[in-house]
């Protein structure tokens, strides 16, 4: 147990259950790593040391425990943590009353024995793909601290990839779990829309908000996801489906699964490293078939439109009274979103149903679809533009062009990291409610060494 920094959650839970190591020792080691590394990585905005140590003692005394016994984890700071104001990456929210209780998913993970050690940096109000934050500074990429972590769950990405904790929760409205998973080289799960309850998390776009885990192994995604499933009447968007454990199916392999890669839209605007990652995964899976997600570019536009207008409605009063206290990049988009004509947004929600029906038809012929997660590996911090297919484009809006048309219709996705000079991930996309299929494929890619969460040098 000399090096717990790169142990998976599953390994930690097994060691704690076997009393090979105490939960207190695991948590103390995590807190020591956070103290040492956080000044560089800037992952944590709050460290809940006293609470974590008390919880560890409860696990060691046998008063708490379960499948995640003694596993330290942290959450994007839009999750409620009892006693902390839920800042959601903003300055304004710091004036909120401290949360009275933990978010539903924090409660569920702790009920399984996991131990919350803190809250994580994020792009303001989650309207971000970079992991940069005007108020708290950027989340830095552990593979190269001059580069972006990706966002908006930037701290969730760099805390796990930097070895501070084995498991973190993030949110994903248009790609905010999958983008940092790609840039930081992690496995990330964005479940089906409505699968996990959002109770006790600060919203961004109610129509599109998802929550999910980031980890360094597929087993840890499955373990934590299983602990978080189940209905919750407090989130009206939660579908109320019974929990279906994915862990038992994880090692089933990919025999019988029909996998295709996404063509057209998903073949353009790719830098060589991201294109090579898709090629590597497709080749390892023996994928011969290509499918076209019809109208994917229009889906990206519609997701963009619903996002900017719903978010503007959420923040309208703050835009009236306190616009100067926003991150300017976020503020200027929200004000623009506020004045987009409502009739145009209504069209986007109608198109969304058309697109859902069209894409679901593809799942009659295939079980999973591969697509790039990001157009490239991590850009430099502060970088404003990049060149895709010969056109200079803004980084901030375009890091999510491949994730946005997928979350738009709530499909479950596992981002699987492929190593290179810098990591970059591939999306394994499944039909609604078939997280098990995406996880099985991800596990196969991990077991065969194709997808790896590589330890930073």
């Amino acid at each position, binding site marked *: 147990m000399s090096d717990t920094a790169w142990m998976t959650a599953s390994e930690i839970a097994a060691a704690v259950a076997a009393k090979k190591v105490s939960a207190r020792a695991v948590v103390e080691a995590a807190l020591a790593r956070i103290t040492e590394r956080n000044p560089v990585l800037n992952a944590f905005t709050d460290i809940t040391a006293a609470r974590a140590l008390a919880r560890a003692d409860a696990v060691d005394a046998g008063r708490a425990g379960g499948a995640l016994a003694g596993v330290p984890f942290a959450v994007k700071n839009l999750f409620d943590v009892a006693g902390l104001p839920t800042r959601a990456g903003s300055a304004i929210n710091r004036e909120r009353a401290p949360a009275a209780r933990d978010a539903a998913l924090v409660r569920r993970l702790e009920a399984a024995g996991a131990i919350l050690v803190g809250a994580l940096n994020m792009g303001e109000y989650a309207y971000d793909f970079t992991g940069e934050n005007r108020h708290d500074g950027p989340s830095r990429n552990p593979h190269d601290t001059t580069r972006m972590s990706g966002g908006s769950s930037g701290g969730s990405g760099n805390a796990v990839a930097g070895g501070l904790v084995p498991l973190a929760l993030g949110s994903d409205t248009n790609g905010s779990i999958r983008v940092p998973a790609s840039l930081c080289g992690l496995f990330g799960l964005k479940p089906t829309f409505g699968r996990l309850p959002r109770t006790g998390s600060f919203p961004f776009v109610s*129509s599109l908000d998802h929550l999910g885990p980031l980890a360094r192994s597929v087993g840890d995604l499955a373990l934590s996801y299983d602990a978080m499933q189940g209905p919750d009447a407090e989130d009206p968007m939660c579908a109320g489906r019974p929990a279906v454990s994915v862990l038992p199916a994880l090692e089933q392999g990919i025999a019988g699964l029909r996998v295709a890669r996404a063509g057209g839209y998903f073949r353009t605007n790719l830098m060589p490293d991201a294109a090579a990652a898709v090629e590597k995964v497709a080749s390892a899976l023996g994928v011969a078939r290509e499918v076209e997600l019809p*109208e994917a*570019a*229009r889906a990206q*536009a*519609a997701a*963009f*439109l619903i996002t*900017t*207008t719903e978010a503007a409605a959420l923040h*309208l009063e703050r*835009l*009236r009274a306190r*616009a*100067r206290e926003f991150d*300017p990049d976020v*503020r*200027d*988009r929200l*004000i*623009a*979103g*506020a*004045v*987009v*004509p409502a009739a*145009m*947004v*209504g*069209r*986007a*929600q*109608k*198109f*969304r*149903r*058309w697109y*859902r029906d069209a894409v679901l038809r593809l799942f009659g012929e295939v079980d999973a679809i591969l697509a790039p997660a990001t157009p490239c590996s991590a850009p430099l911090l502060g970088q404003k533009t990049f060149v895709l297919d010969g056109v200079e484009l803004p980084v901030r*809006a375009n890091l999510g062009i491949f994730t946005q048309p997928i979350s738009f*219709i709530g499909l479950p996705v596992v981002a699987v990291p492929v190593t290179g000079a810098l990591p970059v991930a591939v999306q394994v996309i499944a039909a609604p409610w078939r997280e098990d299929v995406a996880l099985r494929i991800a596990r196969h890619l991990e077991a065969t060494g194709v997808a790896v969460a590589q330890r930073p040098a």
Partner: protein
Amino acid sequence: MTDAELEAYMDASAAVLGIAIAPEWRDAVRANLALSLRMATVVAAFPLEDEAEPAPVFTP
């Protein structure tokens, strides 16, 4: 729509909403609005039946 027309629309709409746009933000807000309206035009160009239902489902 010209830049001047877009600015007039932006100013009038922001006034309706009670949002004050500071002079130093104007260019960025206008650029973001132009982008959002381009996206909206792309979406609106897709033909849909009058009977097409929106995605969100309300359960009483």
